[in-house]
Structure formats: C-alpha cells, structure tokens
C-alpha cells in the first residue's frame, strides 16, 4: 500500500484548489505515502521544473465493473478488438475502448492522472461480482454506488411512511453489499418498465405501479436517510425521463425536492444531492424536431442553489456503449436504432439496459447533445459541475482530454462546433459563450470539486500535510503556454508522472508499477434496536421477494472485503479506517 521511500517533487507549478494554490512554484514532499512538510536529503527527487503538478484526479461517475459492464463486454467483442495491449512484467494484458477489461481500465485511468474512481451503479444482488472485479482493478482507489431507486424495500417503507426503518435499511444494505453511496436511477421508472417496456415514471408525481409511491417520495426519503446517516457522499441522483426532449422541467422539479434538507455529514461536502450526467437531462423542446438546449436553465439553478452538485456527462463523437440502469431510456434507444440491446431485470431491485451507440457529427440531435455538455460546464461554477462522460455512455474516458481542450480553448471548441451539424450552434447557446477555463478551473472540475463532493477531501485531492500522496505531474506549463490557443491535447492525455500513495505508477505514459488498492465501504451506524427490527423484517420479506437466502445475499466480509478501507460514520462524523489497521484491530 505505502512505500517507505521518500519523494521530493521539486519546483513544480502547483495547483491545489482546496488550499487556494493557483500555479505557485513549490516543492511537494512525500513520505510513507503521505504529503509532509519536508523530507530528508536521501529522498528521491523528481524535477518538475516547468511542469504542472496537481493532485490525482477523481472520477465521480463511470461504469467499470459489475454485471452491466461485463454484460456489455460479453456483447461487444468487436470493441475489445479495436485496441489491445499486451502483457508486460508490470501489467496484465487487455484491450477495449468503450468496455475495456478491468486491468486495462486501471492502467488507462492512471495514465490520465486519475487516482480514484467510483463505479456508478451496482445492483446489490450483483455486488459480489462488482467487488470481485474491483479486487482485480489496479492502481486506483475505488468505491461502489449502490442502487436504491427502485428497491422494493425502499418503496415498502416509504409506502408505510417509516422513515427510520428506511434509514436503517440504507445503512444495512450499504454495509452488507460493500457500497459507498446511495445511487438512484430513474426512481420508480424501472419498476414500471419491468411490467411493460413502454411504461415509465414520466414525472416526479407519477406513481409506481402497485407500490403507489412517487419518484418525489423516493428521492426525498432517500435523501433524508442519507443525511440522517451522514454518509460521506450525498445521494447520487439520475433523474427521471433521461434522454427525452423537454425533460429539463422534470430535472428542475426533482432538484427542488431536496432543497432545504440539511447536510448531516462532516465529510466536507456542502451538497445533499449530486445530480449525475445532467447533459442527458437538460433537453428542451417537445420532440426531436424541436429539440434544443436548456443547459442555461439547469446551470442557473445549480449556480443559485448550494444543495446541488452535478457532473456533466459530455458527449464525444464516436463509438460508445450506452449502459444504464435506466432501462426505459435504453428501450427507447433500441426502438430508434435496432442495435443489439441487452436488458437485465434484477429481482426486487433494479434493471439494466445496454446498447452500442454511435454519436455522429452529422446528426443534429447528437450535435446539440455535444454542445449541451460543454454549455453546462462553461456556465456553471466548476466547484459544482465536474467533467465526466458518464463513461461509456456519452463517450469514452480515454477521450477526456478532448473535453479539456474544448473547455480550455474557445478556438478548439468552435472548430469542433463548426464541423458538427448546424444545430450545435443554432439550438444551443454555445456560440455565445466566451468563457475559457483556466488550468486552475480545470483542476477544480476534475480534482477538487469531485473530491469534495464525494466526501474524500479530508484524505486526498489536495496537498495539505497528511493527505494521501496522489499526484499527477503534467508536461504542461500553464504559466507560460497559452492553453487557449493550443490546449496540448496529447500532453493532457498522458501524465509525465502519476504517483499513487507515494509510489510512481506511471512515468511518461507508461505504467511502471501497478499496486493493488483497496475499496471504500461505508459503514453507517444506526440505533441497534431499529437495525435489528429491520433485519428481522427483511428476513421475512426475503422469503417472498428473493430467490437467494438472506444469509447468502450478504457479502461475506472475509472472502470479498478483506482488503477494503472502511468509512465508519457515527452520528454524522466520518472516520476513515484503512484495512491495515482493521487487521491490527482483529489481532487485538
């Protein structure tokens, strides 16, 4: 995990937004995997003169492990074939662009300067698989967002208005299935879809068949539960009606639901709701003919309200594999494209849809979607709007540098817009935006913002003393180079160095070391009595809802989570317990 060696990064141009450091030439000292004040003279020196030094990037929403990406891998051998890497002494073999195997994902993310990534949707029933795959995922720290939005137990408790039991259930499910945060995907809508491919929850007050609760109740209930527990991350919300023209009204409506719920965690986050890949939910118009961008409305709301953070979910032209638990949206795509569709309904929990998709510059709709993602990023405070492509839905994470270049440079952005379909400028406000990101703002939107929103900012995402030594060094000099004229995409694509816990893992775009890193699991404590009551109730209901035994549903901590960092939350206070100390505890 940590190395004993000391490391000195000399004369780098340091960007550390959490500590308000904007391009100062400084040294960074590392000892035992942590940032320290000073190191001894024997420390290994990396000369970073003229190079930008940032904390390791944080991926807040990506689909990498679990049944969904694996089903997509099974379905798309042609994707793996497009890009292959042979094994070396350091790394394992792999390949793929939209759905790479687990090893390839870890190496490629590290090459892009990432040191932490979160899998955005795992059905609890399948979480053992996700954890098994994450245990084979090198270099990056990771965590799982567990799906709650269509869970029958959640809807049962909401129907009987037992908020305390819901809170206990959330705590129970996260703990027993190795989750980190609460994810809601199309709350209620998937349950409707399971009865008929055409059914969905069309707005916040559209009740779920049989259960009778509405998406509004689900979002509110889970948000309250989340804040009562004080989990490190807020609820991670994928709103209803994704990908449908005119859905921005639903989005705004659903964002408003959680306004006023007080944040109950000391993890450093200020929001109680994170709305994800909001590009797909900022559509105006009534149908595809009148389709246009309402990014400005969404950006306005987010700028004005502190209870929300968001990630953009940009679209990048080219091949993508759309995969989401929002099966109705995938069904709509299937009817449009007749491409190969996998859907997978999970008992009592959620569903999944996967379909390969090609974003084309010639398509008017895709061009507008491309522009919406950029509009959102440019119009919103970077502390509240982070760069993602919802990999691999809007584009592949390997293409992140393209998005950075469009943000940094209006020139590059307009070149791309002009080669797109005319709607990219006609139906959006992108042409009127002059803003260009500074390198500092880019670091906010890729490192500091996500770290703070995900509740890891106390441990990493900055260069304060004691923070985890996750560093990316870029062969870019933002002080001298004019990034708005030439955003240097190739240099944004690979780091000069990526340092993970004080160990150099990537050097000049080559993986030189691939340590295995732990998974974050949130253990939120609730009152023992209510926890026991809920567990007893679950045992009874399990006999009717599930085909696995309650005892076999729970993820065995010894077999799967032996090397996991535990995030203990006791009455809103977050305690980080790395797995090394857990074993010491066990020995005692």
């Amino acid at each position: 995990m940590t190395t004993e060696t000391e490391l000195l990064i000399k004369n780098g141009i340091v960007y550390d937004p959490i500590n308000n450091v904007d391009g100062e030439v400084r040294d960074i000292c590392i000892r035992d995997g942590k940032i320290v004040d000073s190191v001894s003279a024997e420390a290994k020196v990396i000369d970073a003169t003229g190079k930008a030094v940032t904390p390791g990037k944080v991926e807040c929403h990506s689909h990498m492990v679990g049944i969904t990406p694996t089903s997509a891998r099974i379905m798309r051998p042609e994707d793996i074939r497009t890009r292959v890497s042979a094994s070396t002494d350091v790394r394992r073999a792999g390949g793929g662009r939209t759905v790479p195997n687990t090893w390839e994902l870890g190496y490629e993310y590290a090459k892009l300067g990432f040191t932490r990534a979160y899998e955005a949707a795992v059905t609890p029933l399948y979480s053992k698989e996700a954890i098994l795959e994450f245990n084979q995922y090198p270099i990056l720290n990771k965590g799982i967002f567990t799906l709650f939005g269509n869970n029958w137990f959640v809807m049962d408790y909401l129907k009987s208005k037992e908020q305390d039991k819901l809170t206990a259930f959330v705590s129970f499910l996260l703990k027993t299935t190795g989750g980190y945060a609460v994810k809601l995907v199309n709350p209620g809508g998937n349950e409707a879809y399971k009865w008929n491919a055409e059914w969905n929850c069309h707005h916040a007050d559209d009740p779920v068949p049989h259960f009778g609760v509405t998406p509004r109740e689900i979002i509110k209930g889970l948000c309250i539960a989340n804040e009562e527990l004080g989990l490190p991350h807020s609820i991670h919300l994928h709103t209803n009606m994704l990908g449908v023209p005119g859905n921005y009204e639903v989005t705004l409506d659903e964002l408003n639901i959680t306004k006023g719920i007080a944040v109950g965690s000391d993890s450093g986050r200020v929001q109680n709701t994170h709305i994800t890949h909001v590009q797909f939910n900022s559509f105006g118009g009534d149908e595809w003919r009148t389709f246009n961008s309402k990014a400005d409305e969404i950006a306005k709301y987010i700028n004005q309200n502190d209870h929300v953070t968001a990630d953009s979910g940009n679209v990048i032209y080219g091949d993508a594999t759309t995969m989401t638990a929002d099966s109705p949206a995938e069904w709509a795509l299937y009817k449009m494209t007749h491409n190969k569709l996998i859907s997978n309904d999970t008992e009592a929990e959620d569903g999944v849809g996967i379909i390969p998709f090609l974003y084309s510059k010639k398509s008017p709709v895709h061009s507008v979607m491309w522009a919406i993602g950029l509009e959102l990023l440019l119009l919103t405070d970077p502390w509240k709007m982070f760069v993602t492509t919802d990999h691999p839905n809007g584009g592949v994470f390997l293409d992140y540098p393209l998005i950075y270049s469009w943000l940094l440079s209006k020139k590059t952005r307009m070149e791309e817009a002009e080669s797109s379909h005319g709607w990219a400028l006609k139906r959006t406000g992108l042409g009127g935006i002059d803003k260009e990101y500074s390198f500092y703002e880019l670091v906010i939107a890729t490192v500091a913002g996500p770290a703070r929103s995900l509740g890891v900012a106390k441990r990493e995402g900055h260069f304060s003393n004691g923070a985890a030594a996750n560093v990316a060094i870029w062969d870019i000099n933002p002080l001298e180079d004019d990034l708005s004229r030439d955003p240097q995409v190739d240099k944004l694509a690979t780091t000069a160095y990526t340092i993970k816990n004080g160990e150099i893992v990537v050097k000049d775009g080559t993986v030189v070391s691939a340590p295995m890193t732990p998974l974050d699991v949130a253990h939120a404590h609730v009152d023992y009595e209510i926890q026991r009551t809920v567990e007893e109730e679950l045992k009874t209901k399990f006999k009717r809802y599930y085909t696995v035994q309650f005892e076999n549903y729970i993820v065995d901590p010894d077999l799967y989570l032996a090397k996991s960092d535990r995030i203990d939350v006791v009455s809103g206070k977050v305690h980080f317990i790395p797995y090394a100390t857990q074993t010491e505890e066990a020995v005692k």
Partner: protein
Amino acid sequence: MIEEKENIVCPFCGCLCDDGVVKVEDNKIVGTRNLCRIGHKKFESAQHGRAESPRIRKNGELVPVTLEEAFDKAAEILVNAERPLFYGWSATCAEATQVGCELTEACRGIIDCTATICHAPSIEAIQDQGAPLSTLGEVMNRADLILYWGCNPMHAHPRHMSRYSVYPRGFFRKRGRKSRTIMVFDPRRTDTAKLADLHVQISPASDHMLVHTFREILNSYDVTHETVAGIPADAIRETMEAMAQHQWCILFFGMGLTQQMGKDRNIDVAIQLMHELNKYIGIRTTLMPMRGHFNVAGANITICSETGYPFAVDFSRGYPRYLPGETSAMDVLYRGEVDAMLNIGANPGTSFSNRALSHMAKIPLINIEPHNQQLLQISDVVFSPAMVGIECEGTAYRMDNVPIKLRKVVEPPENRLPDVVILTEILKRVKELKGKGA
C-alpha cells in the same frame, strides 16, 4: 453428534440452490435436506472415490509424487508448450478462474470454458442480437407465461420449476402454479412436458422454423403452409394468440436449441422474437439460457472481466484475441493445434469428440480433478483438489449470473489443496521459469 449446516449452496447445476441443509458427523457428510436427488448425490459421494493425491505419469504409469514435484512438472509442461490450452473452469470457483486467466497470460496460451460445447451459441447470439434478460426472482415474482424450449429441467435442473419458475408463490403471482401458464416445446414427451399446460411436440431440427413462423405472425403475415415443424398452421396461430394473452413471459432454452442444427442462429431468431414481443404486443418478455454446470456462467463472466472476451481467448501474441471457430477449444483440438493442456473443473472425456480426445491423448495433459474420471487414463500430471463448495469456499454464478458464495461444509482430506492454491503455485513456478529463460 450430527450437525446440521444450513443455507448450503449446492455446487451441481446452474440452479445453484442455496437453501440446502447438509448433515455432518465427524467431518463426514451423512445426509441432506431440501436438495434434489442430484444435489444429494453430489454431497453424499463427494468424499468417496477420490483420486489419489498428486501423481505423475512415469513410464506409462501414474505414480504418486510430492506436491512440489507435481507443481514443477506442471509448470515445466506449460512453459515448454507453444500453444497450451487451459480448459474447463465450470466446476470451480471464480477466484480460481481469475488465477487461471493470469496463468494463461503468463504461458501465452488459450483459455476456454465448457460453454464452448454447451451455451456458447447463446453468447454468440447475444453478440449479434443482444438479449432481454432477467434474474430468476423476476420469474418467480412476475411471470405468468413460462416457455421451456429444448430443455428438460425435471431431469437436468430438478429444482428449477419448484424453486424459481413454476411453483413458488411470487409477489405478484400469489397462487403459484395456478397463476401461470407453462408451455414446453420439445420433440419428446419429457417429464417437464407432462407438467405443462401445452406441449408443442415439434419435429426435430425445426426449432428455427417455428420461431420464425411466430415472428411472421407477429409481423402480420400469415402462415402459408399447412404445417410448419410438424405443427398445423392453425395450432401455431392459436399458440401465438395464447401467448399474447399474458403479461410477463420468459423463455428458458437449453441445449435442445443451442446444439441443434443452426446453433447460434436458433437463439438469434429467438431473441429477435422476444424483442418483437416486447415491441409489438406489450407483453414483457425475457429469456434465459439453462446453464448446466454450477459455475459455467461464472467462467464466462470472470474470463470476460479479466480478458475482455467471454470464452475461447487466445493470448499467443500477448494480448487477448477471440474468434470462436479459430480459438475455441474444440477447434484447436480438432485441428491438432494444441501441444499441452490443463483441464480443470470439467470432464472432456465424456463430451469431446473422439478426434479431439485422440489428440489430447498425444499431448501432455495436466488434470485437476477431485474424482477418478475417464480423463485420468490419458493424463500426465494429476492433482486432486479440495472440492469447491464442499471442502473450500469460492464464488459461483447462477444461470442468471447472480453471484453466490459457496460454503465450506467439511474439511478436505489431507494433501487436497483448493484449486486456487494449486493454480497459484503453478503460476509462481511458471513465472520463475519464464524469468530464467529471459
């Protein structure tokens, strides 16, 4: 003192029933409850007829050796091979398959699982067409129309109907069997067919035709021939009409469809039918392959997440390649392209063609198998491991890809290591030998 161990997962078929009770006395399995006849036999006979601990063939005889010697020999065989094949993985745990993938990569060989001779056509069809899938719990809770096509769960997955599909009272199907309609498509009058509401006794090798005729009716064309697949046109129309009266339908299909003439094309067209049912008449339809071995689904999933491809992955050039027909186990053995083989968790002795077996007899063969099976006759290195799910823990995937942890029931006999340990030891030696060579 008989101890009853509860919630034991049965490591036999793809049903992976996890409600078994196993009675243990002095580390001996003396009885079971809730498990079917096959599952009971698996537990009951697990501790009998075990192959001898590591043996190596010397002068034509399998002689007992130390574990060290056997590991060294296995590693030597694999390192010297130009195109080693790592086959099986269906009756072992996902953790072992993960090590197996690394071993294959280190040896630059081919890894393939038993799906290649059972449900690989289903996977190939999914690669062409996608598929609407669901978990078994969805069937239990929602299904009111259950189609069994080319499979006979009463014999192959005895508890499938009682535990997952037909008989349980689901959340929305409170009357169990009475809430559901069962149709069986099979040329034979099987025991499953006897329990069905409708048995469509099609003529052999004409499944594709019948499925396609259903599609025609769905697409508003009429059946122009008097009989299709041995079924009168009127009966086909009525069947389709009956199907359309339901709300939630699942198609379970077995090797009667996948290994029938046409193979993946049969599944391909069945998936198309399911998509069209979803699209045109609004009955929610899904389908599910009836996987055989308890972890054959897991082998696909694990190999896929490790390498990117679900089976038949060729690492000969250092990176993964996949093309069934070129890199699948049957094909390389048939063409004689393999010069060493490791078999684990499978019994190709009963399922491979004579030609493949005769080639296997010519090449060095490492066999990791707890019991005495046919393949031992031609094996060169034999390991008898601890049995996953009975003597050690591990993860297996049910036929709907749901992961379930297999439990340990009894202690393994002396000298019987888990598959994971055996493979890790071989891998360690392979890496050492490769390091020396370089």
